[in-house]
């Protein structure tokens, strides 16, 4: 597993997490340490169990077995402490859709019991940094995909967590928004926070993350520092090798070319 050499407790520790939907085992006894202060990428093909794993890690999906700890607090037995330390951006879920961005952040801040002045200040700052102030009067339901990711990130950051868990934060996000999100995440890690993000874009993970774990068919097949996992090649090639696949697409499909002539 990922080693840091530091004695600090890991930001997130997953032990033998397991989840089956009917006869399909989505996540099969995955154990994983996310070192404090790391930028951790979780990669895997579609359907590898990334979302299932992250949902169990933060308390949104009850695991069939195993445990998840956030800064040594058990997510499923001591949820109050664990949940106050983590900020989560889930993929594809709804928000309270009929609020504007500012209303949503204000509501969430107060629900978290933050002081009203702090909430107002942080909401304004987050909306500004994430360039959502323009859409001041737009309800979240009318947001574009990129704006939804950004307001979700603002929701995750609002209570100043020490760990961010982001499910596909760059999916369907335009390049400009993606650059903004990347910058914010880098700053978060530089200031001592830890980030776990899932993605199936290898280049992005290679560029952003210092640690990586590879999930395939619900099993953890590799984990460690990015340099260790990829060896001498690119992460993309290493990934295809690790997952045991063979990059297809070279044969067949001859009819694709014939129509272009």
């Amino acid at each position, binding site marked *: 597993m990922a080693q840091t050499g530091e004695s600090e407790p890991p930001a997130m520790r997953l032990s033998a997490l397991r989840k089956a939907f009917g006869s399909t085992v989505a996540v099969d006894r995955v154990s994983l340490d996310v070192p404090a202060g790391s930028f951790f990428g979780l990669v895997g093909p579609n359907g590898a169990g990334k979302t299932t794993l992250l949902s169990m890690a933060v308390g949104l*999906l009850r695991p069939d077995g195993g445990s998840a700890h956030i800064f040594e607090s058990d997510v499923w037995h001591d949820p109050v402490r664990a949940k106050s330390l983590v900020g989560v951006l889930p993929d594809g879920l709804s928000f309270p859709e009929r609020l504007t961005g500012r209303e949503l952040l204000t509501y969430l801040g107060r*629900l978290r019991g933050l002081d009203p002045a702090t909430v107002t200040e942080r909401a304004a700052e987050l909306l500004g940094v994430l360039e959502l102030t323009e859409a001041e009067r737009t309800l979240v*339901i009318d947001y574009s995909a990129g704006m939804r990711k950004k307001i979700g990130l603002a929701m995750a950051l609002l209570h100043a967590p020490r760990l961010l868990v982001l499910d596909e934060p760059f999916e369907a996000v335009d390049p400009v928004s993606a650059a903004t999100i990347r910058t914010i995440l880098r700053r978060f890690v530089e200031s001592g926070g830890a980030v776990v993000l899932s993605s199936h874009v290898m280049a992005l993970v290679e560029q952003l993350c210092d640690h990586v774990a590879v999930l395939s068919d619900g099993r953890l097949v590799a984990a460690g520092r990015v340099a260790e996992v990829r060896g001498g090649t690119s992460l993309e090639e290493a990934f295809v090798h690790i997952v045991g696949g063979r990059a297809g697409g070279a044969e067949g499909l001859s009819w694709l070319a014939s129509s272009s002539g």
Partner: protein
Amino acid sequence: MKLRVLRNSLRGARLAAVLGGGVLGLLFALLTLLLGTVTFDRPEASVEILATGYAAWLVGWVLAPIATGGGDDTLRPEHFSLLPIGRARLATGLLVAGFAGVPAVVTLVAFGSLPLYGARFGAGPALLGLGFAVALLGLVVLVYRVVMTALAGLLGSRRGKELGILLVGVLGLAGVGVNYALGTVIPTLVEGRAGEFAAVMTALPTGWGPVAVRAAGTGEWGLAAGLSLAMVAMLAALVLGWGALLTRQVTATGYRGSARRRAGERRAGRSLLPATPVGAVVGKELRTWWRDARRRVALLTTPVLGLVVAVVPTLGEGGDASSVLAYLGVFVVALACVQTGNLYGFDGSALWHTLLVPGAERPDVRGRQLAWALLVGGPSLLFALVLPGVTGHPEAYPRVLALVPAVAGAGSGIVLLQSVFAAYPLPDPRHHANPFSSGGRPGCARILLILALTLLLVLAAAPAVAALVAGGLLGSPVLTWLAVPIGLATGSALAWWWGGLAVRRLARQGPELLATVGADR
């Protein structure tokens, strides 16, 4: 595809509910079937009764989904928006899918009365009757589809939505009227006293079948052929019209709850709520009730439904409508319990953020209760204060004023209990969704739920009612008026107790609830 979807969704309780609904429908169908075999003294009576029966089936097809908030969404046209299928083919395909289902089979059984009726005249008329039975089924399914699609199209715009609510109210009124009419009309028809009514019924497309069969039976093949052609033309027109509507629904931009709203206009309202977690939830809920079309439909239809349920039955029998009207507030609260009992379903997968805020379950439930009590209890209390005086029944005051707080308080608990224990997923409003479609809650399960919550409401009202009855028997106005604080106390206590149950359930089973309501079918 619909068959596959149906097969995949037919499991356990749902299967039982569909079967239950099917059996109930089958009973009605067999009743209609019987109508085709009974001989009356007056030969026209059969035609007229069959025509009336078929018209009732048509009305039933259109009204049932609206009245129960149901509707067949197994296949939504949006599912096909990206496939290169022409509109006519899409319409035909979805239409064929519309026939695959329990209701269509049951209806066909009912329409089987037509060939049976024809069989009395011989093989030819029986065959014609069979043809017309199938055509009638087509007519019914098509009209249902067109109405639902048109409603969905209409509801795409904000103003249209308000109009739609009104329309449903009027339709509801008409539905209850028809219900009442059927009880009195059939005897009249048999005796041949309702000439004009019968003329209208046989002139409607649903009446063409019986007329044609009878014409064939008596040798007027010209009339029979003409009616057959007219029927085919009618069906073709409906298919075309529906296809056009579909194109609009498929290609229109995403359904918006209520489009962009100005942020400034609510600043004043915000300061009224305390900056606490519960206050935050109340604020969010009030905004969502107002801005989310689906929630608004659920809420705004309750006074209309209340009027229909409370007042209309008294109209025909020479009953006193005003004495019932005085109690409208109580009806509104009870109906609101039924209409809005899926709060977490309304919000769908948004529940994740509540689960991730430590200790947010309590403020979330309490805030939702408060917002509901404000929105439902407020107007109901207003009805309770105004209506008895206006309708000239001041003696109703202690009763209404005792009952409304009791049921409103209990109701705010019941709604949350339903929302956590009997939640079901609704179509994700981020994609197209008709605010009237209720997702996969079959009618029978709904009826059971309604029975259960009526029982709870009766329990909640019992202490106040006991005081009222005792006061009436002993002739003691003090005891009668004592019912008001008793009602207030029961309401508050039950709201606290049942809300607490909901909090505990949410805290323990939150992830499971998220999985339930987050599953967009």
